[in-house]
């Protein structure tokens, strides 16, 4: 049985904000199925009582001195933006006109 269906891949792509094409869905569905069947092998390990590791460095509450250092200027921060207006990032419309 397939680990993941074409419909699931389409749904995940939507959640991931990827406007994938029909051809990509055809291609990815099979490839992702092979990958997921392989990685599912982690389920073979008996690990119920094992704590998870999110990170190899056991550091918590890392603080630094509260010293003011120069940051990016507004111009620098906006320098890579695809569009800006009035010293801000300009985004496409978020709400439709009738809302």
């Amino acid at each position, binding site marked *: 049985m397939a680990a993941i269906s074409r419909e699931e891949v389409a749904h995940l792509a939507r959640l991931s904000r990827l406007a994938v094409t029909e051809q990509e869905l055809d291609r990815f569905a099979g490839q992702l199925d092979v990958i997921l069947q392989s990685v599912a092998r*982690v389920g073979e390990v008996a690990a119920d009582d094992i704590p998870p590791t999110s990170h190899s460095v056991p550091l918590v509450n890392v603080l630094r001195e509260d010293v003011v250092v120069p940051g990016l200027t507004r111009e620098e921060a906006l320098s890579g933006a695809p569009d800006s207006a009035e010293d801000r990032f300009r985004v496409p419309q978020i709400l439709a006109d009738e809302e």
Partner: protein
Amino acid sequence: MSDLIKLTAADLAAKIAAGDVSAEEATRAHLDRIAEVDGRVHAFLHVDDAGAVEAARAVDARRAAGEKLGPLAGVPIAIKDVIATKGIPTTAASKILEGWRPPYDATVMTRIREAGMVMLGKTNMDEFAMGSSTEYSAYGPTYNPWDLTRIPGGSGGGSAAAVAGYEAPLAIGTDTGGSIRQPGAVTGTVGAKPTYGGTSRYGLIAFSSSLDTPGPVARTVLDTALLHEVIAGHDPRDSTSIPLPVPDVVAAARQGATGDLTGVRVGLVKEFSGEGAEPGVMAVYRDTVEALTKLGAEVVEVSCPHFQYALPAYYLIAPSECSSNLARFDAVRFGLRVGDDGRNSLEDVMSLTREAGFGDEVKRRIIIGTYALSSGYYDAYYGQAQKVRTLITRDFTSAFEQVDVLVSPTTPFTAFELGARTADPYQMYLADLYTIPTNLYGGPAISVPAGLSDGLPVGLQIMAPTMADDRMYRIAAAVESTVGTFTPPAL
């Protein structure tokens, strides 16, 4: 071909310090070499001729003024394109960042500049460091200087090929699952993954934040150690940076070069001693282990039973982190924007931009990560992979109670032909079979050239405990002292 490009970084630095060669001459020799061969190798995505000459002249001026400079001052270096370089194009080999010029330097880059080193340009890689062949670059593949029909490894194939092809004596790579070591192995160069947290991730375009580690690439173990020393050390801008002194990797490389390993206990990873590797790789591996014994090392077999689950765990953890990290490519703050026609919504523009800007492998990993983190599957996939990560760490901890270092081949196969593994993405993942456990554990590991199989380089991987980076340099230098270095055919 100028003799300057054949020198090790240590020898070149010594000549520059002695005034026999200027930093500008050294830089121009490498820029000439790049102009001569990079049309065929394609190690670089961007060459900064003017900036490099200017930086070299500045070093020469400082030296003329009597300033005391660092041990690698004036030596040219190539930087993987995933490292932010102020004012210099940085794309991570993705179309989504085409033309982006970062407004700041990564900490690694700041330290390289402070050391008086000269950046030649930015090297090719698999897009966002996801791949093992550099074929997933959005700007075309890099070709292995040993055989231009073959891959240079990945993701840092550009950095490894630049160093192997004498386009740069040194380079910076980043290693998330083997992206420094596997390219090192297949190009006959040395590549080291420092302890996670030993080098700063500030300014490194994030792929998998709990695994990403910048590190050095060079043609000799000593050069690798010298560069390691320049870039390593605590950085308050990276909260996972380890606030401890840098292990003395340079002294360890010099000690190892004496070729005496008396009293050193070397563990062979039992689970990585044959299955899945090419016979030619295993033959070189066995010869190298034999050589270690002759140098005085005590060699024993050590079982790490959970290493066989490292690859599946990694290909859940890394995509999960990447699906979150790459959410920043939202068509708002930097990079590409597609479909902003006044009618499409913000969400549509994001989806169209990410569709146009990301390549197939990046999309596959984002989708897998989104799947593994979704509520119905989290425990079975991401949660379970994190538990397996704990068990792999325990395997390392218990192994290092018995031995000082662990060794294995770096990668199961020598450089394969372009196109050989792109049809089935999982076949590509197998290139990282031996390198991944270390990333999940967080310790350091190095690949050192060990020999040739059918005329292609084979690497030995040496893995050490966390913050014992010096140990792997000692063993690597001892291997180098007995097997020598390997030079590709003339390009």
